């Protein structure tokens, strides 16, 4: 009887663990999607305070093939002025791995180069890590989508 009771507790705890995990994954994925959008909004408003909260201090960001630190990124946003490119996000997928999440998606970037408007299409991949009491962006990068992928 004691063994059956213990077995039931173990089974209940394990199923609770799995369902809690699934529910946590769902809410975590939603939180990460919201943060991805918040990043784009903060960038367009040159809101470095918001970006500072979203980015981990040791963020590694690959932009146009160059490695950019959090400090470099924030300085560029601060100095960019109104000519900063516009970003339009497209659908994204969030994959949960416990306290780590991978986001894959695409976006269109509109800017002006040499006085002419330019539209580019990018595939991005971001890594988020759960630290202290929230999700922080620890790595991000994008590759240009070739015409066949547009």
């Amino acid at each position, binding site marked *: 009887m004691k063994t059956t009771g213990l077995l039931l507790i173990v089974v209940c705890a394990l199923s609770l663990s799995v369902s809690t995990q699934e529910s946590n994954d769902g809410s975590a994925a939603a939180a990460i999607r919201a943060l991805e959008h918040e990043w784009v909004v903060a960038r367009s408003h040159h809101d470095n305070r918001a970006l500072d909260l979203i980015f981990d201090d040791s963020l590694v960001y690959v932009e146009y*093939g160059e*490695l950019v630190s959090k400090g470099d990124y924030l300085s560029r946003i601060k100095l960019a002025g109104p000519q900063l490119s516009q970003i339009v996000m497209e659908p994204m997928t969030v994959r949960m791995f*416990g306290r780590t999440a*991978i986001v894959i998606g695409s976006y269109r970037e509109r800017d002006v180069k040499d006085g002419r408007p330019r539209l580019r299409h990018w*595939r991005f*991949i971001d890594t988020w890590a759960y630290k202290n009491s929230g999700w922080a962006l620890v790595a991000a990068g994008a590759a240009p989508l070739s015409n066949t*992928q547009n």
Partner: protein
Amino acid sequence: MRSLTLILLLACAGTPLGYAQGASDPDAAAKIVAMEHIWSQSYVLKDPKALGRILDDAFVNVESDGRVITKADVLAEVRTSAALQVLTESMAVHLHGDTAILTGVILIKGVERGKPFVQRARFVDTWLCKNGQWVTIAGLVTPVGD
């Protein structure tokens, strides 16, 4: 005693299943760099066996042309690789508990359809300590500079 068991079981319920704490591994960075070397050499050896253990089953990579490829795609790529030499430069590891970010530059020299080629690309890989083993779950390869 029964109450203690129940409390312990319930306390464990909130812990993500199967994800070990990599933060306690003092050799994590060295292990990850070593596995990146195994990964790059698998292209020269055209041998995906060791790489199969390094890449998580859910692995995805964003290629320099924006394509998203899976573990199966990478293993197939290795089997038909045209690389004769693969070198890695400027590797750096950033640890975040059971997650690690590795950045670096890869130089690939080879011959394809009789023509020699050289490719240089920047990469960012995400590693995860899963069940006590470091595996890579995602990557990005993009041309260096603009």
